[in-house]
């Protein structure tokens, strides 16, 4: 009946995919993405090399799911949904970016089979919802919370950090780095503002030489002729123009009619700067850190006064420094008595590798700290930074929500067991979907085992049997290649991460399942001026 006129419904290049075809397209796209990152899962996961198409073809080596997916150019709409959840996972909890994509991919893979056997997507969705809810409750039943016991809590944190790091490039020195990360996060005292942990990367040395500095290190040089070492420093942290201090009011500008007058005004300008510097010096400081440039003239004045002046410390540097030293960021200098100055015991120039850095030690407030990463190449350092960032994120979230689970595929098995039981109790077609959910959950330990080159079928079967007993702690011990007790091996994961993985993977799978039509608009044409 519908023949003529329909072809012209859309604009020229817009396409439309319907029903089964649309569903196939999204399944295939989503699974392709999941398979792509699958091999990076777990402690024996492999890395990926990403080469950018931009200038220089810079290369990134990573096994962080979010980083990999972020750099992909994808056209498949369903794949974009998966990339988005991985990004959100990264922003929200920092770790589990690979797991969430793999789980969503597995859920869709199972859903495809179900759709193939003529089960309606809506039935699958309601089954998945029940299963996800049940799985979450199963996890909640088995969480441990050691918040009250500081000693145990710290060891929990150590274990989580080690588990997170074990899948990354830092796995060789995971103990060392886990300690760094835990120390750094404990200093934050519950705040999740990771900005006060500064990570400085310096090529050279080995990863083992990385260290946490309790003070603060600023990657800047000390001005010429200024003291290289100050004890009991009073620091003024400022954000003010120390170059040409223009008169900004009423859009005024300089217009003169003779050379002499130029000289006069220049003199006045200099005078103004001198006055400003005098005011700053009047604060009784011996160190001045500015966010903006300091020109030669004021720098010279500072040098004359024996004050250490550091220019061009960027926004982050300033904010951290203010946090560490307890000073306020000043922009006007008329009331020296009420401006809070920062203090530290010692400022000195130190050498890391070949670079000179400024080190503030003995600071008043211990919130911020610096982690100096050393490593053989920039790629290693970048990846190390990402890994450490993951660990720090997870830890800072765990400090707030201290519920902890075991790792190594244990949570998945616990959830799968509970979901299986639910499937047996549920009448109707939904039970197929619930069963499929548990299969998708088991796919995660299977992948971990596969990536480690182990016999996954055998191991997962053993694991299932183990978990049939009440309160089993069994998980996959990748190192030995067998089923082991996770609580003895000290492999833990944060509850918040697992919960986020579970919920967002289910949400994403549900979204993709509900789609029965994909309409792609014609791509926007680039203007010719490019």
């Amino acid at each position: 009946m519908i023949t003529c006129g329909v072809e012209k419904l859309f604009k020229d290049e817009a396409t439309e995919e319907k029903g089964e075809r649309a569903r196939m397209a999204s399944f295939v796209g989503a699974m392709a993405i999941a398979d792509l990152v699958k091999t990076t899962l777990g402690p024996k996961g492999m890395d990926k090399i990403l080469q950018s198409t931009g200038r220089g073809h810079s290369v990134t080596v990573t096994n962080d799911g979010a980083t990999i997916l972020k750099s992909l150019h994808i056209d498949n709409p369903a794949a974009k949904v998966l990339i988005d959840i991985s990004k959100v996972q990264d922003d929200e909890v920092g770790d589990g970016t690979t797991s969430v994509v793999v789980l969503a991919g597995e859920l869709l893979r199972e859903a495809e089979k179900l759709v193939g056997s003529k089960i309606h997507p809506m039935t699958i969705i309601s089954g998945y919802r029940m299963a996800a809810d049940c799985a979450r409750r199963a996890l909640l039943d088995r969480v441990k919370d050691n918040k009250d016991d500081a000693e145990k809590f710290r060891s929990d944190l150590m274990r989580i950090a080690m588990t997170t790091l074990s899948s990354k490039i830092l796995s060789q020195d995971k103990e060392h780095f886990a300690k760094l990360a835990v120390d750094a996060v404990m200093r934050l005292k519950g705040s999740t503002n990771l900005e006060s942990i500064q990570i400085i990367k310096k090529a050279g040395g080995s990863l083992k030489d990385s260290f946490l500095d309790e003070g603060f290190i600023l990657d800047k040089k000390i001005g010429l002729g200024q003291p290289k070492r100050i004890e009991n420093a009073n620091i003024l942290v400022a954000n003010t123009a120390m170059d040409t201090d223009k008169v900004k009011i009423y859009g005024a500008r300089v217009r003169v009619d003779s050379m002499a007058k130029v000289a006069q005004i220049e003199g006045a300008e200099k005078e103004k700067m001198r006055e400003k510097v005098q005011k700053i010096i009047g604060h009784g400081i011996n160190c001045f850190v500015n966010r903006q440039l300091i020109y030669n003239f004021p720098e010279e004045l500072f040098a004359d006064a024996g004050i250490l002046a550091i220019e061009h410390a960027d926004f982050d540097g300033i904010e951290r420094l203010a946090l560490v030293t307890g000073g306020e960021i000043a922009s006007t200098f008329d009331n020296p008595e009420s401006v809070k100055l920062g203090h530290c015991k010692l400022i000195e120039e130190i050498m890391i590798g070949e670079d000179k850095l400024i080190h503030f030690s003995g600071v008043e407030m211990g919130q911020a700290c610096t982690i100096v990463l050393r490593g053989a190449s920039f790629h290693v350092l970048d990846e190390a930074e990402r890994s450490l960032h993951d660990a720090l994120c997870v830890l800072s979230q765990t400090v707030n929500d201290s519920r902890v689970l075991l790792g190594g595929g244990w949570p998945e098995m616990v959830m799968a067991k509970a979901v299986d039981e639910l499937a047996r109790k549920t009448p109707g077609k939904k039970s197929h979907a619930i069963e499929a959910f548990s299969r998708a959950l088991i796919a995660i330990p299977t992948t971990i085992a596969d990536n480690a080159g182990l016999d996954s079928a055998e191991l997962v079967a053993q694991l299932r049997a183990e978990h049939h007993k009440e309160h089993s702690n069994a998980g996959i011990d990748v190192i030995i290649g067998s089923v082991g007790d996770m609580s003895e091996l000290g492999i833990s994961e944060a509850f918040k991460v697992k919960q986020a993985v579970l919920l967002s993977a289910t949400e994403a799978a549900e979204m993709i399942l509900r789609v029965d039509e994909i309409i792609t608009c014609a791509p926007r044409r680039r203007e010719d001026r490019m």
Partner: protein
Amino acid sequence: MALAFDEYGRPFIILREQESKSRLRGLDAQKANIAAGVAVSRILRTSLGPKGMDKMLQSPDGDITITNDGATILEQMDVDNQIGKLMVELSRSQDYEIGDGTTGVVVLAGALLQQSEKLLERGIHPIRVAEGFEISSRIAVDHLEKIAHKFDFSATNIEPLVQTCMTTLSSKIVNRCKRSLAEIAVKSVMAVADLERKDVNLDLIKVEGKVGGKLEDTELIYGIVVDKDMSHPQMPKQIEDAKIAILTCPFEPPKPKTKHKVDIDTVEKFQTLRKQEQKYFDDMVQRCKDVGATLVICQWGFDDEANHLLMHRNLPAVRWVGGVELELIAIATGGRIVPRFQELTTEKLGKAGLVREKAFGTTKDRMLYIEHCANSKAVTVFIRGGNKMMIEETKRSIHDALCVARNLIRNNSIVYGGGAAEISCSIAVETAADKYPGVEQYAIRAFADALDSVPMALAENSGLQPIETLSAVKAQQIKESNHCCGIDCNDTGTNNMREQNVFETLIGKQQQILLATQVVKMILKIDDVISPADY
């Protein structure tokens, strides 16, 4: 092609370059138009109802939208066909007017078009068909009025409102927590509603979303949430009993708008100007301080020096707040927006019980909550969700729910959902048809058939046998003369919509029928389509 000749046999040019234009006339034109309209409605048909599927739309820039909101789907589709665009307009006007039922209206229009095609094939004149449709739409609307129920709600008893909103939300992806979302929607509408005048200004409800967390974390905040943070990192993060100065003037050196020149040509001038500048900043801050403000919210930026002075004088400030948000803050806190520092007075300050900054996730995302405001007439629905598309879809769903709640406050009549109202109308139209002499009778019968297509689509989407289910329900409605029988989409075992608590608003339904009829009439009246040549 139409050609006309003058007395010398030369052709007049009526359509310029008519060879290169394609032209359809008469029945062909109508059929082509109908086909296009039906094609659009077919796309939406599968999205109808609680078991309706979603559509994934990729914009020209590659962004993804997943939705089952009819208006959104049509708006984002690259429709080129003229009639297709009419359908898009149709759904949009339903969206503007009512806010809900955007899918249903298009499905109904499509069904009407399909029916009219059959009539045209029989040789009935399009205008007669259109007139018949017009008559029947009036019958249907009157009938709806008859079967509508008034229901009572008050500020304390919001349960009926929540139930109706839940019907709207159940067709969206958010139906997992439709209960809590419906409650949020109703509570927020009740908070801003003017029950005396029966009016609701939806502008007072701000819907803000942030990726992360889960859908269950979505909350209603009696106050304003602004996606901004304090201008200076060391300003206090929490202010109690805040007195807020709402400014639209920047803390920056003034630049008069008129053309001017201030030339510095002597040292004295330089120095006076410099002093003035310093004093100016000082004055600005001091003025805010003098009137007793404890928080400054500004539409524009701050100069570094002003920023520090604010910090120094212990006056927290927020910069770059958008105009709309500024207005909302002003309404919520009962303050006045002040365009000049000179005009700042104590009376113009807004008051809020608590202003706090809240951080999210591992990135630097911070938001400012302004709560316990003097005038709680502005509220914010703060949505959390797993990914960006989810947030967007939730925003749309909440918007629909808000509109429904608003419509109910305006007019508290409801009809039963799940196709019950359509079936009942169809029966009424069918019986009325016999009373009409003339060709219109056929059109009226066709209208009744078209009304059946909505419950049919519902049944189809829910995996039921469409014809079987529909006839069963129809028979039941006539036998029991019960208007509450509809399609049991959720498999609950009863098809009494009153028991299932599935309601829709009366005005929404009426509007659907009227709008759909209007558009179909318009399409039927076209008998000549002239389209320019393809380039």
